[in-house]
């Protein structure tokens, strides 16, 4: 996909540069060539670039490209870590997309709302976290925009499975209804996150 996009971009640039340098008369052949260089090829670049870009935005390296996500991504990629993020990242079903799979909204327009929130992340990153230390220690504590809902866990963990029913028997209905959150008990999600460090907790306790 990337190769197709780059090849089309190169062809389009070559046609345009040829026109700009040579300045041939606008005959039929020149117009057809320019329609390819100015219209069709850039459209292919935009389309394939969008797909390649969208796919890359689902990956963990993309999430980790903002320095404030460093502690989260380092923990998720640590083969010795026993945090939920690391365990799920080691699962081949998540692969490189472990951040997105657990944090994306699980609804019909989930991908759209998730990407809109991504734009919000970018705005807040630029306005609040730029130049706040290697892991963003100097910035405000990172929080989710809304509570982490159980449906994200239930994408894979069925609440009807026998083992699940046996171990969660008392709270089963509460969990299914979303009254009790999975991460209330399974709370070792991102143990190295800045918000879990003592300094951040002290700052939070201050009025």
């Amino acid at each position, binding site marked *: 996909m*990337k190769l197709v*996009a*780059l090849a089309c*971009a190169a062809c*389009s*640039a070559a046609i*345009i*540069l040829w*026109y*700009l340098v040579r*300045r041939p008369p*606008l005959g039929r052949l020149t*117009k057809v060539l*320019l*329609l390819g*260089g*100015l*219209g069709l*090829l*850039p*459209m292919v*670049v*935009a389309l394939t*670039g*969008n797909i*390649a*870009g969208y796919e*890359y*935005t689902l990956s963990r390296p*993309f999430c980790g*490209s*903002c320095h404030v996500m460093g502690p989260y991504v380092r923990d998720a990629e640590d083969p010795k870590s026993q945090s939920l993020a690391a365990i799920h990242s080691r699962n081949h079903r998540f692969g490189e997309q472990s951040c997105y799979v657990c944090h994306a909204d699980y609804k019909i327009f989930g991908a759209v709302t998730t990407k809109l929130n*991504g*734009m919000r992340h*970018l705005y807040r*990153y630029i306005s609040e976290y730029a130049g706040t230390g290697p892991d963003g220690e100097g910035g405000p504590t990172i929080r989710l925009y809304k509570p982490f809902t159980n449906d994200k866990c239930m994408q894979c963990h069925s609440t009807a499975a026998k083992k699940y029913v046996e171990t969660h028997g008392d709270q089963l209905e509460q969990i299914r209804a979303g009254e009790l959150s999975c991460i209330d008990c399974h709370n070792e999600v991102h143990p190295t996150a800045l918000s879990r460090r003592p300094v951040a907790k002290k700052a939070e306790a201050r009025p």
Partner: protein
Amino acid sequence: MRHSQVKKLVFLSGIATLVAVGLMALSIVSPKPIYLVVAMSIGQALGTASLALFLLAIVLDLQGAASREASSEGAIEAHRESVNETKPAP
């Protein structure tokens, strides 16, 4: 005048497309969040605008060609009429 306008429009369209394609290629080669956002917004808006400029240039060029053709046909017709008038009646 119209022909030079058409050439200018195509030139502008070419420059805008080069910038747009460059931004989109940059986001593919180096997919950082800011590059991706710039490519998907500014890059694509520039690309669309440049295609619109090119199509406008083509329409203007075709209109110019049609009017040139009409004026040359008119001139030929006028010339024929003047030749007929000067001919002595048989």
